[in-house]
């Protein structure tokens, strides 16, 4: 049975209480993208600056539950300084982790997760989810998966728009 400790890992609560890169950058030059969950009203507002194809800075605004806000905070720490392609790989790996169905997890789910990360192009071994893995337990609480992916979806949309606009 999934317990609360699977969901509310200490590192998640830490990001919730002390969100990283909180705030907003001036647009332009920054780009802006919003994620909205109509079911619960949670909102993530991302503003980010690009230099070539590198995200040089990113700020997180909005409001919502611990999972949506902590996940966006962890995402900000993970993507700043990375290229669009690197971020897309990371997004794919993260969303793969979020889509593993409970039944297929068995045990702590690390094998399934590694498989998913591999499938997402992580087999060069360089791509590690690192702290983001703390969110793995969210999969056991299906209604909360949307909370965890809210920021990532907003970032993916934002990056697609920036790429398309150039």
């Amino acid at each position, binding site marked *: 049975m999934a317990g*609360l400790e699977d969901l509310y890992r200490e590192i998640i*609560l830490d990001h919730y*209480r002390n969100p990283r890169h909180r705030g907003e950058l001036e647009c332009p030059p920054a780009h802006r993208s919003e994620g909205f969950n109509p079911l*619960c*009203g949670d909102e993530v507002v991302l503003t980010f600056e690009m230099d070539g194809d590198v995200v040089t800075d990113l700020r997180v605004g909005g*409001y*919502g*539950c*611990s999972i949506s806000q902590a996940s966006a905070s962890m995402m900000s720490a993970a993507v700043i300084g990375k290229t669009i392609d690197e971020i897309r790989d990371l997004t794919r790996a993260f969303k793969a982790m979020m889509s593993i169905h409970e039944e297929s997890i068995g045990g702590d789910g690390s094998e399934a997760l590694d498989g998913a990360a591999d499938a997402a192009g992580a087999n060069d071994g360089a791509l590690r989810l690192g702290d983001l893995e703390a969110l793995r337990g969210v999969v056991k609480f299906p209604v*909360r998966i949307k909370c965890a992916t809210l920021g990532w979806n907003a970032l993916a949309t934002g990056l697609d728009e920036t790429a398309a606009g150039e």
Partner: protein
Amino acid sequence: MSTGAGPDIDRAVKVQFPLLERSVHGRPIVYLDSAASSQKPTAVLDAMDDYYRTVNANVHRGAYEIAAAATEQMEQARADVARFISAPSADEIVFTKNATEAMNLVARSWGGSNLGSADAIVLTEMEHHANIVPWHILAAERGFEIRWIPITHDGCLDLTDLDRLLDGAKLLSVTAMSNVLGTLNPIPRLAAAAHDAGALLSVDASQYVPHLPTDVGELGADFMVFTGHKMCGPTGVGVLWARMELLDAMPPFLGGGEMILDVTKEGFRPNTVPHKFEAGTPPIAEIVGLGAAVRYLEGLGMDAVRAHEVSLTGYALRTLTDRHGDDITVHGPSEPAQRGGVLSFVYRDVHPHDISQVLDQSGVCVRAGHHCAKPLMRCLGVTATTRASLYVYNDTSDIDSLAEALDEVGALFGH
């Protein structure tokens, strides 16, 4: 503990609801989400089971024994529902899928033939989306104006400008009890004001009929809608009540079988009320179940149901504030007599999703979200609330469990 919450209603009632015997996450279930949907007593489950096992056949037009019995059971339920809300005639009871469909029926059928671009209707800021969106849809087609009665800081209707808002309006459509704040609105007073202004009154009684003795005449309503699953009945059946002369004049809503007297290649003649509004095979078993629910509630006595809930709401308000003090704020009227057993609360700055998630681990079922009342959420300045709602099977131990489980929320999210 003595609470004055009718001990006869307490224990004796809970055991009549089989689901309340189960546990979740290894803890006995504490069901505090009846405003979303109520649990069902054995009497209702048995009635539906019996119907399918011994009576099942399509209604009307069947000469054989069980078809006649099915029709009789369905029409008995119509009479039961009419009696339950003191409707003058069972023919004024139209069965729908739920309250939402009933309100759409009023909008489409009455609104569609009475509202034009020069007209206005009045809603309130505390309506459920079921009493907002059907009007938005129709207004987009016909261009009438929608006016809004605002709410006060303590979650009551602000009637200061009522007469001005009603001036020239054709309809006031209002909830009898807020599904978020528990506020009981002064329906007879609103009826008088609407009628004085030449407007009709439509009442969303989805949260009212299950919890208080209801008399459509005393309320002064012209239309009233409610839904079976919130009043110990099954899902899939709702009710529109309206005055016969209104129903008579309204065009059909959906077309098909049952709702016609004659059909030719050129057209059709609609059936009489209420069948005119009941196209296709109705949810017969559900209607039978709703009839059983109504008789079950009558057996308890709606005065006793209301007294139980007033007492338990008072107990809940006291217990939550005694135990959690400034950490908790309950929205809506503070006086139990002015409200139903719906408690939307803020606990510290913890998000409702996180609260309900932690409570769930203790078996406590509460709802987190906007409760289909987004305009109200905006008025309250929140995106979501945590809502605990009570019904006749709840008792003080459920409230104690809620208060206790909130400690764990504090422990996890405390700073």
